[in-house]
């Protein structure tokens, strides 16, 4: 366990005063590894908040190069990096904020080949991926390897988030046992929506690592930013779930 340096004590001064967090919680953040996949509208802001909070290592999995259509919400992607790898843009921006951060950049999306290894390297997984294939893979590996997973989602002005703790909660396949038919790869959204749910996701990861507060276990938080309605829905494990069921 690495101790906090004088520079880190100064940097995190304001959050060290958060009750039940303190220096012990900050040291747990410093010694933790979080997998964020992908670093799009959600994952960019998750990674940025975790870098700001002092998480020691981030694994960033995201394929492809920066495109114009990334720039309304993917806040780690910049105009001057158009056409260049997204993970490089993300790494550059995160290092500007926190040069102490250890980043493992993976220029691939989560797939059958890398899912087991990348989930195995992390203490916490934040699922910010668009494709349900990737989301189900991360969920399967998180359950198999007993790793908590924060699941973030958005659509238009709607946001959803839940925290999956294997053995204690419903998993993503309990929630969505079949491949969604109506979901489409491109969907309407503002960056402020992805940023909002991403901050909630980062806070869930921080609480899990530091060990304070109550996570969204078996609870799905939903927000409609068109009306600013916020709801908490009690969700259920499915006994017949192919991933976590009996």
């Amino acid at each position, binding site marked *: 366990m690495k101790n906090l340096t004088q520079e880190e004590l100064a940097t995190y001064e304001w959050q060290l005063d958060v009750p039940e967090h303190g220096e012990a919680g900050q040291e747990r953040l410093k010694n933790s590894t979080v997998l964020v996949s*992908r670093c*799009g*509208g*959600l*994952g960019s802001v998750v990674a940025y908040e975790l870098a700001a909070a002092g998480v020691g290592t981030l694994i960033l999995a995201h394929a492809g190069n920066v495109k114009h259509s990334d720039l309304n919400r993917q806040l780690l992607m910049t105009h001057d990096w158009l056409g260049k790898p997204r993970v490089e843009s993300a790494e550059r921006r995160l290092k500007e904020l926190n040069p102490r951060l250890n980043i493992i950049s993976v220029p691939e999306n989560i797939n059958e080949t890398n899912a087991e290894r990348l989930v195995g390297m992390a203490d916490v997984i934040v*699922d*910010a*991926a*668009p*494709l*349900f294939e990737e*989301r189900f893979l991360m969920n399967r590996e998180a359950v198999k390897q007993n790793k908590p997973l924060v699941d*973030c*989602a*958005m*659509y*238009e002005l*709607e946001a*959803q988030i839940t925290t999956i703790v294997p053995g204690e909660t419903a998993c993503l396949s309990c*929630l*969505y*046992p*079949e*491949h*969604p*038919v*109506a*979901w*489409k790869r491109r*969907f309407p*959204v503002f960056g402020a929506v*992805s940023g909002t749910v991403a901050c909630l996701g980062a806070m869930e990861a921080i609480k899990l690592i530091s060990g304070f507060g109550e996570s969204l276990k078996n609870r*799905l938080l*939903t927000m*409609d930013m*068109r*009306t600013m309605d916020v*709801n*908490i*829905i*009690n*969700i*259920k494990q499915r006994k017949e779930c192919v991933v976590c069921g009996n």
Partner: protein
Amino acid sequence: MITIKLRFTAQLKDQVGLATDTVLVNETDTLQDLLSHLVEKYGNDFGTILFDENENYRHSNLIVINQIQENYEDDITLVDGMEVTLMSPISGG
């Protein structure tokens, strides 16, 4: 007759064209009756999100009643003023 408050999210909301609505049903109707009635009310495109070609419910659409997730097969007694939310799956990006 009793009144059921309806809420829709994501693609189901897009299909209905409304985030909220109300519907009158018989006091003896079940949750399954309600969903069949909604398919008649909102049309086939809405129906194909909820049910497959064999009329089996697609369980990835969440059914939430008064803030609690319920399963399509559950024996639910509909009561006047009950709020039923139908949510289609969403993701990141």
